[in-house]
């Protein structure tokens, strides 16, 4: 019998368990997966005193409504999220990047993300989850990982394997920044596109379409004209690669992306901008800017340093 558990009263739009993701499986067709916004994922774990790579609950737009039953635990939510904790007849307004103690009977209502897509819920303890290939990240396309590889569903129970009895309250002063200027490195098929197509790609804004999820982000705007071939021999893809199919509308590969693709790649989003990119909501207008590999490497070092600084402030 599990004495500590959450009951899901509302599942939210796309609520899954995620961790650092899976490695070395691209060759059989399994992507990294893992938390979309890596920085916010790590911060969530640090706040509740867990190992940084512990599983958390990731939600998108509308989060879950959870009832907690069991011994006191701490929770933390990262991202830009509106949430409340209901206790008896009172209501506690939630604040991101801060631990909250919850007790049996409390209801945690993760109402919505605010001008962003993903948020993270961590607990001072460990969820009881199934690991596949050393990760519990849920890949709903291949039905791999925790919760039978599926999104969380209403009326389900989430059992806790263990909890941490020492509850330390923690807080971090941090505000997520938005970027709408996405820096990229030229892709291996950059010259498949016409001079005009390339110019439009860097000069015009693209709107993030509603048909975006953990696999990819579809963009709408100027059509990028291909003058060589609208197909390439299918080859490996990576996170952040921007494919342009024959219709001229770019698609950016995200964490659950197909491992192989046959559309020409005009560019690849730099690693330093990935966490910010995935947080942009449908309807947002973005612009691409080209940078060199060496600058991308320096920017990543800087981004990583910033993340480590934030972690050490907790």
């Amino acid at each position, binding site marked *: 019998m599990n004495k500590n558990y959450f009951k899901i009263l509302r599942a939210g739009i796309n609520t899954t368990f995620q961790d650092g993701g899976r490695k070395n499986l*691209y060759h059989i067709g399994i992507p990294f997966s893992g938390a979309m916004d890596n920085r916010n994922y790590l911060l969530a774990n640090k706040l509740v005193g867990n190992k940084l790579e512990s599983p958390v609950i990731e939600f998108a737009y509308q989060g879950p409504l959870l009832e907690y039953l069991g011994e006191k635990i701490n929770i933390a939510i990262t991202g830009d999220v509106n949430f409340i904790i209901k206790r008896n007849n009172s209501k506690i307004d939630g604040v991101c990047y801060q631990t909250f103690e919850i007790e049996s009977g409390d209801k945690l209502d993760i109402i919505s993300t605010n001008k962003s897509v993903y948020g993270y819920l961590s607990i001072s303890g460990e969820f009881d989850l199934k690991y596949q290939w050393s990760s519990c990240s849920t890949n709903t396309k291949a039905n791999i990982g925790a919760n039978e590889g599926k999104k969380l569903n209403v009326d389900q129970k989430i059992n806790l394997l263990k909890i941490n009895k020492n509850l330390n309250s923690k807080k971090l002063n941090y505000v997520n920044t938005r970027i709408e200027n996405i820096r990229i490195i030229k892709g291996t098929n950059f010259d498949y596109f016409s001079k005009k197509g390339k110019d439009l790609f860097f000069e015009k804004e693209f709107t993030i379409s509603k048909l975006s999820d953990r696999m990819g982000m579809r963009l709408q705007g100027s059509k990028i004209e291909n003058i060589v071939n609208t197909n390439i021999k299918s080859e490996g893809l990576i996170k*952040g690669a921007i494919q342009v199919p024959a219709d001229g509308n770019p698609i950016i590969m995200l964490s659950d992306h*197909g*491992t*192989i693709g046959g*559309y020409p790649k005009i560019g690849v989003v730099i690693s330093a901008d990935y966490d910010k990119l995935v947080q942009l909501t449908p309807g947002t207008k973005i612009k691409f800017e080209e940078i060199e590999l060496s600058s991308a*490497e320096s920017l990543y070092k800087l981004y990583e340093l910033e993340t480590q600084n934030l972690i050490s402030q907790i």
Partner: protein
Amino acid sequence: MIKNISNLGDAALYCDFGNEVNQSTNTEVIKYFKSIQKKNIEGINNLTPSYNKLIISFDLKMTNFKVIKKIVENLNIDSHDELKSKKIEVPVCTHESFALDISRLEEKLKINRVKIYENIFKKEFFCYMTGFIAGMPFLGDLDINMRVNRLDTPRVKVPKGSVGLTEQFANIYTFESPGGWNVIGNSPLKIFDSFNEKDPNLINPGDIVTFKEISKDQHQNFNE
């Protein structure tokens, strides 16, 4: 042999084995893939072999393009590694409800559906690679008169089990997924098993695959 190495973004190496897509180029790619996989090089976190390319992804926290490029350029590839291969028969139902793009193919190829299916069911296919989605095999080679491009706009959902054609290849969608291949039928066979962590793929690079026609009833009552 690798003809050219470039960077794909800031965290991957793009190794090009030449423009030719044939079984001998592909065998070279697979040899490099297996050699690098065995060496467990620090920082490398994924390898994606395809027809004529090998993409090596690495963790930018631990290493960078220059370092990995140098390692790959100085690799000794074990040319004695033989590809282990097996033969697999895949049942396919070509009922209209499954063959989503057969009319488009008839139009594009100027061949009627009877001849299209005849061609596919008599052929032995070679598995070049697996991926896109978990376990999806890329099977070649279709005859030259049977080759057609992907759909201009990929489908948001291609049904699980769909058998698709594009250019010189056939594939099988192991899950419902977005995709742009021309779908000609559906197989009830389990191609990918996520509970078998050691060997999840029924079809692996180097294997030989044939398709066998089954009726809609057989498809519905298929029992592995």
